[in-house]
């Protein structure tokens, strides 16, 4: 049941008429209003506030001359502005959460497993062995079968040795580190997959600019000896980690070692000796051009032959060392499983499939990261949503209660 509109209208009018209009009230208001126009400081204050308050709402700040009234208005404005404050706080929190999430996402790559992350700095040995690990210590000059076989500087024999001191070899000062990197990997593979894996390993090396230096296979018998094989891959040092990681995915890893040897000293020594021999050769060539007797010429020629021989030998060693520091060596031993096992997983056999494999790995890593941050992010978002909803509900409730 509701009150009849006309009756309510009449009742309210009746009740309202009981309130007598104050004498001269409207005249006083208008007089006071006109005084505002005549008061420059009040008007300037109103004009200054007019643009920022009245244009938006009738709730504008009361620029009254009464300080108490102003204080009340400020309180009211603060209360009425609560929803924007809540929303602003929520927005700022959202921005902060977004920044945190971005920072978390940015930190993901560092937390991903990276074969190269476990590797020691160049010149130090590092090993990563899932099973039995065999590590070796770095021994300068012993890696790669390259010996520093150069003897002492050749004496010029009966002739006087060149007086000029050998100049510092090119590149000795500021010589970049020469690191020889080697690794070995033992894999157990499925029965009958030896040839396939060998081809895949070769393709891996070729795809990264390397090559297969050595391949050997050994057929087993039905009883004891399993079919096995080995392959030595030469790959650019920059691709070593990638090739090692991909090779590990081709079978079950039983052992993996990697070793980095700093051969900078050996390299510089070879360069110095080559430079010294070249200087000696130039001196002997000068002497020979001035020789007048046959015996002198023959003696100098013997020395020249000896120097040239040493020079060729040292240059060869330098070339070998250069190659070994440019290419890393990965020796992979493959042993077929006795029992037939399904292949571990389809392995990339070409550039496209390799790219696809990497793409899938990247997707999995990114998804892993997303799942990791999803929990905290969801919690923060839920908190924000609850705060916003509660704020809006409180504001609406307050407004509904009073307006």
């Amino acid at each position, binding site marked *: 049941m509701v009150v009849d509109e006309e009756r309510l209208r009449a009742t309210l009018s009746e009740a309202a008429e009981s309130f007598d209009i104050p004498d001269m009230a409207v005249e006083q208001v208008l007089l006071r209003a006109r005084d505002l126009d005549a008061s420059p400081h009040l008007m300037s204050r109103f004009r200054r506030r007019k643009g920022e308050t*009245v244009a938006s709402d009738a709730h504008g700040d009361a620029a009254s001359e009464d300080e108490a009234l102003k204080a009340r208005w400020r309180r009211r404005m603060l209360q009425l502005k609560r929803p924007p404050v809540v929303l602003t706080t929520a927005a700022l929190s959202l921005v902060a959460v977004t920044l945190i999430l971005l920072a978390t996402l940015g930190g993901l790559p560092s937390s991903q497993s990276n074969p190269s992350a476990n590797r020691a700095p160049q010149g130090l040995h590092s090993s990563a062995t899932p099973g039995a690990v065999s590590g070796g210590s770095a021994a300068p000059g012993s890696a790669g079968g390259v010996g520093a076989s150069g003897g002492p500087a050749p004496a010029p024999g009966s002739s006087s040795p060149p007086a000029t001191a050998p100049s510092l070899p090119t590149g000795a000062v500021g010589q970049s580190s020469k690191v020889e990197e080697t690794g070995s990997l033992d894999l157990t593979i499925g029965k009958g997959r030896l040839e396939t894996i060998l081809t895949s390993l070769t393709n891996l090396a070729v795809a990264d600019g390397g090559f297969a230096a050595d391949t050997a296979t050994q057929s087993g018998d039905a009883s004891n000896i399993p079919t096995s094989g080995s392959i030595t891959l030469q790959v650019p040092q920059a691709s070593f980690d990638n090739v090692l990681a991909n090779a590990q995915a081709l079978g079950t890893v039983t052992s993996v070692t990697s070793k980095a040897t700093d051969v900078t000293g050996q390299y510089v020594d070879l360069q110095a000796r080559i430079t010294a021999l070249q200087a000696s050769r130039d001196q002997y060539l000068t002497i020979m051009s001035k020789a007048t007797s046959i015996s002198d010429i023959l003696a100098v020629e013997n020395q020249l032959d000896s120097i040239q021989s040493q020079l060729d030998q040292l240059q060869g060693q330098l070339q070998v060392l250069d190659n070994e520091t440019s290419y890393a060596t990965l020796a992979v031993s493959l042993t077929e499983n006795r029992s037939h096992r399904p292949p571990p997983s389809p392995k990339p056999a070409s550039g496209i499939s390799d790219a696809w494999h990497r793409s899938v790995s990247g997707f999995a890593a990114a998804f892993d990261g997303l799942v990791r941050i999803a929990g905290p992010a969801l919690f923060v978002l839920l908190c924000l949503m609850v705060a916003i909803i509660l704020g809006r509900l409180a504001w609406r409730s307050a407004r509904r209660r*009073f307006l």
Partner: protein
Amino acid sequence: MVGGPRDNDDLAQWLERGYTRSFRTACLLLGNRADAEEAVQEAFLRAWRFRASLGSGSNLTPWLYRVVVNTCYSKLRDEVRRRERRSELSHLEEVASSTPPPEEQVWRIDVSRSVARALNDLPFHLRVAVVLRYYAELSEREIATAIGRRPGTVKSRLHEGRRLLAAHPALQALVLSESAPVEEELQ
């Protein structure tokens, strides 16, 4: 209060014409004559100050009532609440204390007492809707503009307000006493 003022004199006349209704609207909302006078005065001063942005036409009246309502709300919250309901029927005390009511005013005082009591028991948002609609004669759309809500909200508030008023004992008695002579006449 239809049609907007063009200059200061027009505005003065417009405010002067609307003062009585605005004042009594504030009285009904606050139940307090002194606070109502202050509220209307403040609203009018604000209208004068911001007359450059008042605009004209049909939005002017809702704007003025919006200021009045907001000022009343502020008064109610800051001052009337502090008085702890001492304001209830205070205007009647003023009337009673100033001059003894003549005989013809007794009925009006009874009406005012009942309406004031019923309105005072209404939530403020319902009170605003009822007073603006049935005393200030604003349309639902104008009330919506004045209080910043949708017309549908105003409509539901009006209905709720009328329902609560009908259920209120003070106003129910008034309605019954008013309807009794009508029924007698019909019989």
